[in-house]
């Protein structure tokens, strides 16, 4: 009943303060989700890029983040001769130190050397500039460019070698590190794995069966494994998740717990301060369940207002970080807001249960007390 709900509202200031507190908790939770999606977007964009029909890796390597072993140069060439293969493109992967000048101080980047400018395994999307042409040009992840204070046309030092930034890539930020792309022809000077490859990306002919090509590659070189893109994406997501999930669980727990305490205090204060009003309502014939539902609806409204505010703030934060702090890649999703809303409503029900049980102790005869 509307009047019962109105009668049992918290003071507007307190309800607003609680909603803001819940919003901060929800923001924390949503940002961890958005951070994961931002991270995953980079993994998916790169390892799931069109044109990469099979990812061939040394046995024991199933992802891009932690790979070991190298594929000899002649094997790279021979992979191109397998039936159904249109192109076998070597990829050289290594961590490099990048800096603005010829100095030891720099940041560590994940260098991917590929057949520039249009071979498979290059940057999935460019935010500015163009792909490299030749051995001294690189495409730098735009978050890395932000960290280094570089833009298109600026010089960059990779492991002490001077190159030039000719493009900035998007969706290539792994949070802890970022990608830098250079032509495989010039990569030896930087990562010094002469003629070898960390991975070979196979582009198949239209009529080729990927599974058959993968089997043929493995049959011929049992030290190699060929991963379909979907499996390779999955492996990479698993790899980035392993480090991220514990932190995510911790942050979500803290965010939800802090909000639960706020809800508990809100309901506790409501039940204590409105004790006489509840007694009057019960004396007038309002059912106890109706009173409890009114309190719950109020608390749910406060929580949903908090979640909606948190979601709006997350959106603003994502926009702001994309513009001014691209190292923090946030990709908020509506689905996450719905999940967090459900999580928070469930949390509110649990947190409110204790104080609500105290309603049973309110005797309607208290309405007679002067």
């Amino acid at each position, binding site marked *: *009943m509307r*009047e*019962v709900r*109105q*009668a*049992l*509202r918290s003071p507007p200031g307190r309800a607003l303060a609680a909603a803001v507190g819940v919003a901060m908790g929800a923001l924390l939770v949503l940002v961890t989700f958005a951070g994961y999606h931002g991270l995953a977007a980079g993994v998916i964009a790169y390892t799931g890029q069109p044109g990469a029909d099979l990812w061939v890796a040394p046995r024991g390597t199933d992802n891009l983040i932690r790979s070991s072993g190298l594929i000899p140069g002649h094997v790279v060439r021979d992979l191109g001769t397998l039936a159904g293969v249109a192109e076998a493109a070597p990829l050289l992967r290594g961590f490099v130190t990048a800096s603005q000048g010829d100095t030891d101080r720099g940041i560590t980047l994940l260098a991917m050397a590929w057949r520039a400018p249009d071979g498979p395994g290059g940057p999935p999307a460019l935010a500015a500039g163009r792909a490299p042409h030749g051995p001294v040009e690189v495409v730098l992840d735009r978050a890395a460019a932000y960290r280094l204070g570089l833009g298109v046309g600026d010089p960059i030092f990779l492991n002490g070698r001077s190159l030039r930034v000719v493009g900035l890539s998007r969706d290539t930020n792994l949070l802890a590190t970022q990608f830098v792309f250079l032509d495989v022809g010039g990569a030896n000077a930087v990562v010094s794995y002469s003629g070898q490859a960390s991975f070979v990306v196979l582009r198949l002919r239209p009529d080729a069966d990927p599974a058959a090509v993968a089997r043929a590659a493995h049959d011929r070189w049992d030290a190699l494994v060929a991963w379909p893109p979907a499996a390779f994406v999955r492996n990479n997501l698993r790899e980035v998740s392993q480090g991220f999930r514990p932190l995510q669980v911790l942050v979500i727990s803290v965010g939800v717990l802090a909000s639960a305490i706020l809800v508990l205090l809100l309901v506790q204060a409501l039940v204590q301060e409105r004790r*006489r*009003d509840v007694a*009057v*309502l019960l*004396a*007038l*014939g*309002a*059912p106890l369940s109706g009173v409890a539902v009114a309190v719950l609806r109020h608390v749910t409204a406060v929580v949903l207002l908090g979640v909606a505010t948190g979601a709006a703030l997350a959106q603003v934060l994502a926009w702001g970080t994309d513009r001014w702090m691209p190292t923090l890649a946030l990709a908020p999703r509506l689905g996450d807001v719905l999940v967090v809303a459900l999580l928070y409503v469930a949390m509110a029900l649990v947190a409110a249960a204790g104080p609500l049980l105290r309603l049973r102790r309110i*005797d*309607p*005869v208290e*309405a*007679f007390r*002067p």
Partner: protein
Amino acid sequence: MSALVLEGIVADRGAGHRRVHALRGVDLRLDPGEIVLLEGPSGSGKTTLLAVAAGLLTPVRGEVTLDGQRLGALSPAAVRDLRARRVGFVFQRANLLDRLDVHGNVVLAARLAGLHGAEADTRSAALLERLGIGPLARRRTDALSGGEEHRVAVARALVHDPAVIFADEPTASLDGQTGHAVAEALAALARDRGAAVLVATHDPRLERFATRRVRIVDGRLDG
């Protein structure tokens, strides 16, 4: 049919070693339109008697019949429903709900009694007009004077045409003139509607509105 019948009511208050016999065999009958003053010293059992009669407190022994229904034979939900529909209260403190405006306080009682939308609104507006506080309908209750608060409480008690109204010291917190006006309004409206009124009071000024007076001492009615 009597509006309210109490037969052999024995009721306790408190729990454990603090339990006391608040009512020790009370018999009382109120007919429609009667205004009965329940007088007695503090602690004599006046409020307990109102609570038992209204179905807020279950007696240890005895039977309450309210508007023809024996409360002992009803489920707690049915007693609550009967109270919402057929009982009105005027408390010592007006006990208005301060998150609702004047109109909301009165409409609340109407809705709890099962009246819907327009009818609840119309009845509330008419009563507030009759009590001379129509222009205050949208005012917050914390902006009302004591007399205005009690007039709203009277409207809340009467809006759903109850069979019985229980008033607990309705003039105790009001000055003489205001208390007189509130009591007069309550008596007049109750009489018009044929409601029985049981008023627990110390206030001798209310005697002129009463059709009968009963006195309670140590949980027993005198005489």
